[in-house]
């Protein structure tokens, strides 16, 4: 309710107040997409669906004025899903006003942003909540209401954030695939903060480029975007629990020749025992293999979480091995293959992602996931029968 009010207020302010009349032409762009997901096996829980069709749209309105020093962006998102009502949803990804001056930038509204450098998981990236029904790998995010002031100096950029409203994580419903063994009861989330989702969170981040290194140091104080879970009293569902946490994050990338060396480290306290988690690794690119235009990148990352098997996180002692093929052709064809191996048990995850432009406005994407030898006590055990192949076609405008 508060969230809707905030949004409505912002809409009104931006469209009537700040946006000067006749200030440059507004511009619409965006995409509509359809995806079909074929599952290789019957679901673990017979309530879960089989093959699935889904449609999505993400239009984007953009308008700038004041010689580009001010702009307004509005990006709604809509998803319809054939079987999972939790996956059919609407969100405002962005609704922001930006003012850029010589040594500062101010942003007010709902926004998405990204912190970090690694590929396999994004420990440091904490501002936006994960829209898990969108993508099981956690790469899709909800818009986050914020006030953000960036101070741009010789020693780097200092970003200050006030985050007045919390977004709950989305989870597949009872009917949905790619969920835990027990469904998540998102209507009964628990909060440590007495203000619940209205707790005012804040964050600070410094980032800079020093020679070959791009680095960031961040601090977050507020409601954890990543919940832990408690079993509901009837034992039929899990309740998400959102604790108040403090999190320090450090991300670093050294770009040395054809090597990229990457590391992300966090220290989180407030969610049961304090802990440290780490992702670190490299990417090496063979440019123009076999005298062609094709680039081949190989990457490897170590994923570590001090909490081990007790963590509500899937990768606590794992290794990613991957290969990225970039064809550098007119259609921007790309292929990524990866395997995440659990060091402590036989479980591993296979990842395939591939995309190619068709003509000038269409894009086709093929994605596959396979979950192999997942033990019964693993957090991912609920998805052991959810291997899938997904074909998506998007039209951009």
């Amino acid at each position, binding site marked *: 309710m508060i969230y809707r009010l905030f949004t409505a207020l912002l809409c009104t302010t931006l469209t009537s107040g700040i946006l000067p009349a006749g200030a440059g032409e507004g511009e619409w762009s965006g995409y509509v997409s359809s995806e079909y997901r074929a599952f290789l096996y019957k679901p673990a829980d017979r309530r879960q669906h089989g093959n699935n069709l889904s449609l999505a749209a993400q239009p984007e309105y*953009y308008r700038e004025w004041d010689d580009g020093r001010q702009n307004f962006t509005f990006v709604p998102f809509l998803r319809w899903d054939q079987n999972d009502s939790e996956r059919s949803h609407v969100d405002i990804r962005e609704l922001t006003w*930006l003012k850029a001056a010589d040594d500062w930038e101010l942003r007010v509204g709902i926004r998405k942003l990204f912190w970090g450098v690694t590929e396999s998981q994004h420990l440091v990236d904490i501002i936006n909540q994960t829209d898990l029904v969108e993508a099981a790998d956690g790469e899709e995010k909800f818009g986050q209401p914020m006030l953000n002031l960036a101070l741009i100096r010789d020693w780097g950029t200092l970003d200050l954030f006030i985050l007045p409203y919390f977004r709950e994580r989305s989870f597949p419903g009872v009917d949905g695939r790619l969920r835990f063994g027990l469904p998540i009861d998102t209507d009964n989330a628990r909060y440590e903060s007495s203000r619940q989702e209205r707790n005012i969170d804040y964050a600070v981040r410094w980032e800079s*480029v020093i020679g070959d290194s791009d680095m960031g140091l961040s601090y977050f104080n507020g409601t954890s975007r990543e919940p832990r879970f408690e079993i509901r009293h009837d034992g039929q569902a899990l309740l998400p629990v959102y604790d108040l946490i403090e999190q320090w994050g450090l991300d670093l990338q050294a*770009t040395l020749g*054809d090597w990229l060396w990457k590391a992300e480290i966090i220290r989180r306290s407030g969610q049961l025992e304090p802990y440290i988690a780490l992702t670190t690794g490299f990417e090496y690119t063979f440019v123009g293999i076999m005298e062609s235009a094709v680039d081949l990148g190989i990457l490897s990352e170590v994923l570590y979480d001090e909490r081990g098997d007790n963590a509500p996180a899937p990768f606590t002692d794992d290794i990613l091995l991957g290969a990225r093929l970039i064809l550098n052709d*007119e259609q921007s064809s790309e292929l990524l293959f990866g395997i995440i191996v659990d060091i402590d048990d036989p479980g591993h995850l296979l990842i395939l992602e591939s995309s190619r432009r068709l003509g*000038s406005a269409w*894009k086709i994407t093929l994605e596959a996931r396979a979950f192999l030898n997942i033990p019964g006590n693993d957090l991912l055990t609920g998805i052991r029968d959810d291997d899938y192949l997904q074909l998506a076609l998007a039209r*951009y*405008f």
Partner: protein
Amino acid sequence: MRKTKIGKLSAVNIALPGLRAACLFLILLPIVAQAETPQEKGLAIAQEADRRDSGWQNQTASLKMVLRNRHGQESVRQIRNKALEVDGDGDKSLNIFDNPRDIKGTAFLSYTHALKPDEQWLYLPALKRVKRISSNNKSGPFMGSEFAYEDFTSQEVEKYRYQYIRDETLDGRDTFVIERYPVYKHSGYTRLLTWLDKEMHQPLKVEFYDRKKSLLKTLTLAGYQQYLGQYWRPNQMRMVNHQTKKSTDLYWADYHLKTGLSTRDFDRNSLKRAR
């Protein structure tokens, strides 16, 4: 030694001389003529071309890129280009893609250097992510085109060793023909045979020879216009790859020089704001 730059062949920063050109040229001619060795004469020509294209400070332009495969099928990219002249170093540039639509808003920030690897960042708008990318190898294709990154960045004088070959008339224009040999060890070329217009001190044609010393590509530049009474910029650049039979045409428009851009318009923050 003072670092100087040669006229930019580059799409991004095409450079060159002015009109004072004609007069300057007459004054300079004896000096060039006195140069004793072909190497000295080649270097002198490059330095003069650089001198004439210095001082443009910054520039914006729009760029249409037409990629053609061996069957003649076309695909088009629309790019907005911003460039910043940097004294004593390679230029900075920011390229923002408007088309194709699936990469709309993708932005590419580059700090070029003569002999060191460039520094490059890519902004991916769907992920809101800035990625520093490896730029050791400058010979890879730029956005699937026949232009390599090294063709697309500013052409500093010290990027090459030079040799004057001959004078030649090319399509009715008097040119110096010089050879340039890349100094950067990861260059994809062994030499660039360059036809430099004597009046503009701008390239009209370049032949690129690959690491096996065979002819790889030919670049032709046309439709030069002069801006601010000094700086020449081409409207068209065509790159033909003789080995793959593919080609890329660049159509430049809306050049604005000395527009007041600063280093602040070429940092990671501006990359995130790019549209």
